[in-house]
Structure formats: structure tokens, C-alpha cells
């Protein structure tokens, strides 16, 4: 009835090319953003912050980044954990070397450092493709983690190799460290993720995004029609690593506050983010969010149902969570190989035609 293009008359090119052409979509997004900004901060508590919302936002950011590389440019990467570690250690070094630098810029600069490292490790992608590239990026995962564990300069020569985020403020309100209020860290991460998602959406709609997709769909054809593979592939690595680096910086500085590289950024993290975008939907911005929600929030939800709600033993609950999540992954991949975002897309198509599907 109300979910369709008909009846909405576009009189300018700007109107015609907006991200959400349907008014209902646009308004629902504004309602969700308004809810996230104006309602959630008043009801958030430590548990919601540290166990639900911040992990969701951080992993969404990482999934966004990897989706640009894998989903839009078709370059398979298993180095996400290593790149997150670069972001985390860059933010630590920046925070301790320049105590007066605003944390917002620290996070952005950490993303920048990671982008540089990403370009370096993206160089092999010019020669190798597919699974072989996955193995090459796997090397970066192991090398970077080893490097941060081996060279004491990265952790400022602390006895245990742990890095701890000092307290940093924005407008006088702490957003890192143990004394930061929940709403402040939440709004900080939310703002970063909203800005990042908006930028990513527009990047993928523009010239750069189209060149990535051309490379993904058939690189030789793309090269023949004039897409430079060097620039397209390396820019995909740079942008993707920038996002993943910011995610790593947020993971360390805002979410956990203290980490140790071998535990926080091991190979499991690379797989986790890859599964997020495969389940959420490759080549889809909203898919990154859905995938992150699925793999980060579902275990917490199941744990709360089984342990807090039903009082089951914790180990039994944990084993059932493994089974349920694994089963659901297989189920969704069989039912919808293009990810949960595709389900959402199909729903929208059906809504447009409703109530006259033929």
C-alpha cells in the first residue's frame, strides 16, 4: 500500500538518486536513528553497553570493512584479525605518545595507519586470486600478531605484554577507561559507525565502488574497459583496512580497555568477521549489520535464555549454543546462499507488489 515507488514523483536528479528511493524506507531509517540517538542513551546500562551494543557496533564496523574487500571487490581476505590488531596497537601508541590528541582523531588515525599496512599486504592481490589470496592474507594475520607480541616497543615494554587504554575524553566526558559512562561510549561508537556506514554506502554507489564491482565480476573484462586493477584493488584494500583498523581501535580502546594480542586478535577473529559477511550478505551494507548481529548478539541472547531464564548448567548451555549457531548457519546458507540481506531484499520486493503479486 504505502511501500512502493508509485505516487512518489521525483522532480530532480538528486531526488532520483538518493540512497532510499522509497519514502517509507527513508522514514524508517530516520526513526531507527532517532531511537538509537534519542531513546537508547537514556536507558542504557553497563550490561547493555559492554555485552550487547558496543560489541555489535564494533563488529559491524569490522564487517563493513571486510565486506568492502570481499563483498564488493571479490578479494578474499583472512587477515582481519591482524588488521584489527594494527588498529588497536596504533591507537595505543598514539594515545600514549600524544596524550592531548582527541580520541576521535586517534581512532581515525589508527584507521589510517591500518590502511597503509593494508595496502602493503594487498600488493600480492595484483598477482594472485581467490583461495591463493586468502592464504597470502593469512600470512599477514600470523605475521602481524607475532610482531606485536615479539617487539616490546609496541606494548611500551610492559612486563606482561598487555596494553591498557588510558582514559581519554571528548568534550570533557570520558569515552575510554573504566570510568566512562555507558551512554558516552555508546554514542561515540554509534556516531563512528553511522558515519562509516554512510560513507561506505556512498562509496559503493559511486565511481570507486563500481570499479571494485567490475573487478569482482570479471577482472580481465574490467581491465579492458579501462578500470585500472592496481588502483581498484589497492583502494579496496586501503578502504577496507581503514574500517577494520577503526574497528580494532574501538575494540581495544572503548570496548575492552585492555588486551593481549594473541588472545584478542587470533585467527578466530578473522573467521568470525568472514562468517558475519557471508551470513549477512556479501556486497551489502545492511548485510554487514545483520551478520554482526547474528553472530555477536545471538549467543548472548541464547545464553540469557538458557542460563538466566531456564537455569540450565552453564557448560550445557554453551554446548547448545555451539550447536544452535552452527545449525542456523547451515540452515541459512542452504535456504538463502546470498545471506540474510537477500531475504530482506526479497521481502522488500514482495512488499512492493503486495497485495497484487501478479
Amino acid at each position, binding site marked *: 500500500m504505502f511501500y512502493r515507488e508509485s505516487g512518489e514523483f521525483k522532480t530532480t536528479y538528486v531526488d532520483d538518486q538518493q540512497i532510499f528511493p522509497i519514502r517509507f524506507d527513508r522514514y524508517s531509517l530516520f526513526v531507527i536513528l532517532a531511537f538509537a540517538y534519542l531513546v537508547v542513551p537514556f536507558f542504557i546500562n553497563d550490561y547493555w553497553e559492554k555485552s550487547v551494543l558496543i560489541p555489535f557496533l564494533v563488529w559491524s564496523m569490522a564487517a563493513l570493512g571486510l565486506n568492502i574487500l570481499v563483498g564488493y571487490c571479490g578479494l578474499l581476505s583472512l587477515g582481519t584479525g591482524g588488521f584489527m590488531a594494527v588498529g588497536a596497537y596504533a591507537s595505543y601508541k598514539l594515545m600514549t605518545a600524544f596524550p592531548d590528541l582527541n580520541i576521535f582523531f586517534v581512532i581515525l588515525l589508527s584507521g589510517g595507519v591500518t590502511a597503509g599496512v593494508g595496502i602493503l599486504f594487498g600488493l600480492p592481490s595484483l598477482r594472485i586470486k581467490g583461495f591463493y589470496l586468502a592464504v597470502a592474507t593469512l600470512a599477514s594475520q600470523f605475521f602481524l600478531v607475532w610482531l606485536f607480541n615479539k617487539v616490546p616497543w609496541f606494548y611500551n615494554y610492559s612486563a*606482561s605484554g598487555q596494553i591498557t587504554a588510558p582514559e581519554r575524553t571528548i568534550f570533557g566526558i570520558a569515552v575510554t577507561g*573504566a570510568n566512562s559512562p555507558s551512554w558516552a561510549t555508546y554514542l561515540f561508537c554509534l556516531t563512528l559507525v553511522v558515519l562509516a556506514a554512510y560513507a561506505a554506502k556512498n562509496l559503493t554507489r559511486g565511481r570507486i565502488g563500481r570499479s571494485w564491482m567490475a573487478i569482482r565480476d570479471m577482472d580481465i573484462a574490467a581491465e579492458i574497459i579501462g578500470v585500472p586493477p592496481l588502483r581498484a584493488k589497492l583502494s579496496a584494500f586501503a578502504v577496507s583496512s581503514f574500517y577494520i583498523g577503526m574497528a580494532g581501535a574501538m575494540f581495544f580502546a572503548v570496548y*575492552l580497555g585492555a588486551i593481549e594480542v594473541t588472545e584478542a586478535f*587470533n585467527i578466530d577473529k578473522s573467521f568470525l568477521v568472514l562468517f558475519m559477511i557471508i551470513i549477512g550478505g556479501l556486497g551489502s551494507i545492511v548485510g554487514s549489520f545483520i551478520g554482526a548481529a547474528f553472530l555477536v*548478539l545471538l549467543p548472548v*541472547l541464547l545464553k540469557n535464555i538458557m542460563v*538466566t531464564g531456564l537455569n540450565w548448567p*552453564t*557448560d550445557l548451555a554453551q554446548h547448545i549454543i555451539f550447536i544452535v549457531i552452527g545449525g542456523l548457519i547451515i540452515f541459512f546458507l542452504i535456504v538463502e546462499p546470498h545471506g540474510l540481506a537477500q531475504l530482506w531484499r526479497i521481502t522488500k520486493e514482495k512488499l512492493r507488489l503486495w497485495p497484487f503479486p501478479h
Partner: protein
Amino acid sequence: MNHKRMTTAAIAAVMALGTSAASAELVFPSLSYRTGPYAPNGIPFADGYADYFTLLNERDGGIGGEPVRVIECETGYNTEKGVECYESTKGEGSLVYQPLSTGITYQLIPKATADNIPVHSMGYGRTSAANGKVFPWIFNYPGTYWDAASIIVKHILSEEGGDLGGKKLALVYHNSAYGKEPIRTLEELSKKHGYELTLLPVDHPGQEQKSQWLQIRRERPDYVLMWGWGVMNQVAIQEAANIRYPMDHFVGVWWSASENDVLPADDGADGYKAVAFHGVGSDYPIYDDLRKYVVDAGKAAGDGSNLGTVLYNRGMYAAMLAAEAAATAQKIHGTKTLTPSQMRDGMEALQITNDRLAEIGLPNFGPQIQVTCANHGGPGLGAIQQWDASAKTWSLITDFVSADREVVDPLIAEDSEAYAQENSITPRDCG
């Protein structure tokens, strides 16, 4: 976006169900791990911790007449899950956290300090938290890793007739914050005693140690020290047996010395040593009560097969120290119900005498403990235990001896001062 909203709404519903718990009891959260690569070590500890509190509830009706509630939360030895567990249990009136993971302890040090909830990292965690002036909410009595390192070196000294000049020591360690802890102390001690130290890191989880042991076979260090956990211990002991390294020259920290670690190597593990901060076996009167009130009544946390193992004993010891601190806090504040900050006062005034240990049913189980405002690291005493593969038992072969305080104390002061400076903490005055 629909999915996201649905998930959020569902979580909200469940959370609302979960947070309506009564708090007229003493709450002890147990951040355990019964799954994951470290589960074989996590299970007996968690069982011992839970069973001791069950015993108090069943036999004495709790602590000072106030029933105890243990909330268990599965961390899988994973830091993020540990944070989730902390946040989900701290609102329930949790009195003290014992995460049994160095990584999670480092997480909780700033968080728990800000929330005013004490953390007891018993023989693990951040060693310099022993300085109560800088870490008022963190406790690690009865001993720290640096004490352990020093006690091991002392034992080696006595084996070698007091001279280690020109000897070679190797440290096989878990390549993490936990495993790196003793390095600084061992380096300081090497300056003092003149031995040469080789560092051999092993990456998580530690199944692959061929190259480390090849190096040991080639260099033949006089003694091998180990800071391992989980499957790493079993593999190391097996590898040592494979290269026929003399087992009585192989000494582990207290976390590398459970039955799980030595049994797989069978006779090869005979003579393996480790430092310990409490007694071994089930030859203590308290086990009669545990069997009567807990295991035979079907109330044990596990299947009862872990009773008397090293890690079960340790979990029980941790629970006993927590219960004694709670009783002390009840006395200080003249109240039955406790808040976390009252609990902290109890922990800081904790005193465990030999008489009290005998009363509890654990005569001579551990050293006497006297926690003070400035010293949260306890007496720092340890004994050496040795494995007898034919009898399949551990036995203590030395008395509880003290660490080299001359070396350890300045290190603690230095590291805690660095922490205080980094986090702009003004050390409190302990009078």
C-alpha cells in the same frame, strides 16, 4: 533492520526476566570455564569452588547464618565472554570475583576498581597488584608469580648446594601475559645468582612444542622451568619424557601441576616437580564432610570424581579464603548481609592461622596468611611438590619457604608505581 530490532526486543524481554533476583544472601560469582581448550583445568577448580560453598550451606546454613548463592558463568577462558559475565553478574550483589584467567583479571582490574568490587586473583593475575596502596580492590594472596619464580630458583639453589654460577636455566612459557609474568624476576635473579636464562615461548594453545624441546635437547639446560596452562602442560611433560630429560630437573609453576598434566606421560612423568601454595591429596578431615553433605547427598557440582585433585583442592581453597574473608567482614561491620566494599574490608583484614585451618578441617593445608592494607600478596610462601608416577600421587617434598623478598619486593614496587603513574592513581596511605 527488522532482524536487528527483533533480536534487540527479544534480548530486552529476556533481560527483564533475568534481573529480578532477590539479594538477601551472600553472592559469590564463579567465572568458570567448563568448555574450550582449558576446560580440563577449569572444571575441577569450578567444582571445588562450588562444592565448598554447598558444604557451608548444607552443614552450617551458610556463612554466619547467611546462605550463600554461587552464580556460575561460563567464560571459556575468553576475555570478551569474561567481560559479559562480569557485567551480567555484578548487579546481583556479587561480593568478589575470581576469574581464574590472567587475561580476564587484567580486564577486571580497572573495571572492578571503578565499580568498587574486590577481585581475588589467587596466585595469578597481575603480580604487582600485591601492592595494596595502588590496588586497593585487587588481592592476590597467598602468593604471586614472582614469588613462585623466586621459590623455584631457591629450590634449585638448595639442590645445587647454593651456587648457580655458570648453570643454564630454560623457561618454557605460555606466550601470553600469564606466561611472561616471571621473566622479569628470573632475569633479576640471574643477575644475582649468575645463571644463564633461555626463554622458550609456546603459542596458545600449546599443542605444538617440537621446536622448543629440540632446542632443549640441543642445549641441555641444567633446569627447565615451565609456566603453562591447559593442554600445554601435558604436551610439555610428554615432550620432556620423550627426550629423556631428567624430570626432577623440570619444575613447573602451580598452574602446571595437576593430575591431568602428568597422567598422560605415564611413567615418563615420574619425578616432575612444581611449586605449590597449598597441600595435596584428600587426606584432610574436611573431605569426610564434603562426602557426607555434598557428594553423597547428590549436590556436588561435578560427578564427584575430582575430589582431592590438585585443582579441586585449589578451587576449594579459593572458596575457603573467600568464606573466611566474608566471615571477617561480618565481624568487622557487625552485619550478616554484606556489600562488596564491606567484603573488601574483610579481605584486607583476613587472618588465617594454623588453628583456624585445623578448625575448618584443613590442618596444615597452607601457610598462615595475614593480609594487610599495604600487602595484598600474602605471605608469598610456597613448597615444592613432586609427582610419583607409580603411586599416582603428588607429595610435598619441602616445607613452605619464602620468596627472595629482596628481589621481589622492589620489582613489585617498581611495576605498581609505573601503573599508578600511567593511570594517575595516587597511592593511598596505609599508616
